[in-house]
């Protein structure tokens, strides 16, 4: 008799733990052909707030790590992901309805993207920071610092490569993230959170909520303890994106605007996903004897 498989419960990832939604709600996730795959937790407003609290708690510690250490941890995420490639390939194939070969390509690219960003940890400040030759006896320099808690509405279509491409730049620069996954394709994000939990990423640095960006986005955009927001997950929905940008103005969040359509995630990224969420700090240090 065939063995009955043990199925995984897909949960949220908040503060390093895997809770269900406090609302008790879940929703049916289907594959690209509409066949039931699993129930995912349907995150609520309260889950958003809990995730922001967890993120804020982790912010100072993560920003205070050395850039070298953050780079090591990002590289570690890539290692652990590489180790679980078959699982991610299956999840992407199922979610996106692509061939096994295409899914494999997505996973490879996602791992490679993590490696690419890992290397930026201790280089970005050298590339976008500088000494300033002021007309006076001061050593004056400008360097990037993390903005703080960043809300990320992850892409709806690219369930893994897109997700990694927006989360890695946020955390490699020392920010912490509250991520809302793709609504219809959330399972690779949940599996990704299991990788994060076993890659020395401190709890709270990345929090992943499965649910609807249109429902959760407004709470995240209006939250006064969130410093910035990436609206990529509502690409193409101009009306919603505009209302989120208006809400974000309440505490002058840094906003990465939603594009008209999801970009080609396979393309080599530029620095913009990192520079959108850093602050330039300038320090005047006296020179004298």
């Amino acid at each position, binding site marked *: 008799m065939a063995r009955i498989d043990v199925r995984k419960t897909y949960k949220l990832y908040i503060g390093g733990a895997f809770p269900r939604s406090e609302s008790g709600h879940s929703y049916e996730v289907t594959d690209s052909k509409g066949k039931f795959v699993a129930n995912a937790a349907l995150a609520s407003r309260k889950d958003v707030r809990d995730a922001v609290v967890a993120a804020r708690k982790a912010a100072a510690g993560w920003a205070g790590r050395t850039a070298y250490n953050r780079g090591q941890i990002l590289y570690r995420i890539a290692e652990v992901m590489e180790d679980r490639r078959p699982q991610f390939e299956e999840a992407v194939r199922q979610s996106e309805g692509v061939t096994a070969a295409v899914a494999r390509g997505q996973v490879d690219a996602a791992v490679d993207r993590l490696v690419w960003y890992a290397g930026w940890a201790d280089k970005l400040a050298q590339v976008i920071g500088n000494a300033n030759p*002021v007309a006076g006896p001061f050593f*004056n320099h400008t360097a990037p610092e993390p903005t703080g808690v960043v809300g990320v509405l992850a892409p709806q279509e690219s369930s893994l490569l897109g997700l990694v491409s927006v989360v890695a730049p946020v955390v490699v620069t020392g920010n912490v993230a509250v991520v809302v996954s793709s609504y219809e394709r959330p399972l690779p994000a949940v599996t990704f959170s299991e990788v994060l939990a076993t890659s020395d990423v401190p709890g709270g640095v990345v929090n992943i909520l499965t649910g609807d960006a249109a429902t959760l986005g407004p709470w995240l955009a209006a939250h006064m303890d969130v410093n910035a927001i990436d609206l990529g997950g509502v690409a193409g929905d101009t009306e919603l994106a505009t209302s989120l940008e208006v809400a974000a103005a309440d505490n002058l969040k840094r906003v990465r605007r939603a594009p008209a359509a999801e970009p080609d995630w396979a393309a080599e990224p530029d620095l913009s996903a990192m520079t959108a969420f850093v602050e330039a700090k300038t320090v005047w*240090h006296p020179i004298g004897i």
Partner: protein
Amino acid sequence: MAFEYAPAPESRSIVDIKPSYGLFIDGEFVDGRGTSFKTINPATEETLAEVAEASEADVDLAVKAARRAFRGWSRMSGKERAKYLFRIARILQERGRELAVLESIDNGKPIKESRDVDVPIVAAHFFYYAGWADKLDYAGLGPNPQPLGVAGQVIPWNFPLLMLAWKIAPALACGNTVVLKPAETTPLTALLFAEICQQADLPPGVVNIVTGAGSTGQAVVGHPDVDKVAFTGSTDVGKAIARAVAGTDKKVTLELGGKAANIVFDDAPIDQAVEGIVGGIFFNQGHVCCAGSRLLVQESVADEVLSRLKRRMGTLRVGDPLDKNTDIGAINSAEQLARIRELSDIGESEGAERWAPPCDLPSSGFWFPPTIFTGVTQAHRIAREEVFGPVLSVLTFRTPAEAVEKANNTPYGLSAGVWTEKGSRILHMASQLRAGVVWANTFNKFDPASPFGGYKESGYGREGGRQGLAAYLKGADL
């Protein structure tokens, strides 16, 4: 003891203020289609001139002129654009005294500041960005950097000409054209700058100046053919602008309010720190977004710092902005004076102790003596809200961690000061303070090569330095 000084007024004969001014659009002064308003000397309340209030139609004309000029200006080689900016920088230096006197008359700031700080930095700013115009490929802001188009710029009244320079110089260097609205109470130096653009033979439409109040500013920011919005002013207006541009492709930089902590440790050189505290809050009558308006002093030296601070405040000279010995000039407007009075009264009613040195204030004009509040808690409104006047709130702390916590306990994050002899402590504090500019053993220093801008609700984007170019180029962030 206070020394007696004979009056030493700077002559105002160097400036020629016309009875009325139009708008500067497409290289010429034109009559506005709207009404006009008066600009006054805040030290005397005399009317200086009638100035046109640009209507929406006027702003539209200015944007159209800027759009027409953009084609030629953006395609001109950087080398040639640079020469125009160098020309402007030189004329600013040549006419420096005239600009300084006019600035002091229209704004109320002491001549020693307009002459020695504002105008020299204005010229330096054009000089600095002139040199960038043909070197943008080397700025590290991506390959083949491209200008945005027409920049709509709205500036405040506290540093009228300096804020103009911060906005116009990088915009032009990157190949953009501009429509700039100076503040309602301080339009005159911007209009003199327009004359300088004419003297420099700057192509028509590259710089357009539209005077007016809030509605003119809204027309500039909201114009559909403006590609870039740059604003310096209050956080409330900054938020309104962020809402207004939501859903558009307009690139935005906002330089907003502040409530900076000036932190004095027990090992600081006290006399030097006292000078820094005074400069931090009383420079420009405290009309400074990055003013060190919250003094955080370590408990063990609080009494000593305060007594020396009070003694020093007793020697500050408040009065005629054109007098070369004046330290504190006139408050810029009746409205601002009312705001300072209101918040100061609230400070007293909330239980803080108010102190100001004996001070004879002129009978006409808008004046407020240098004032400190002690016994201030973090909950007091004078410790939380931007007063934008010569009013200092004094709080104390025991440990560096407490200083960091208190300093960061504000929605703002523009600047901070640290006073200590210990270099490692300076750099530690600098890394912990959530502010865009940190001054160690100095305060209120500005330089065109040094980026300036805020964290949190003090806005976003940077002005000055290499980073300041990013605000005026496609794609680039910092």
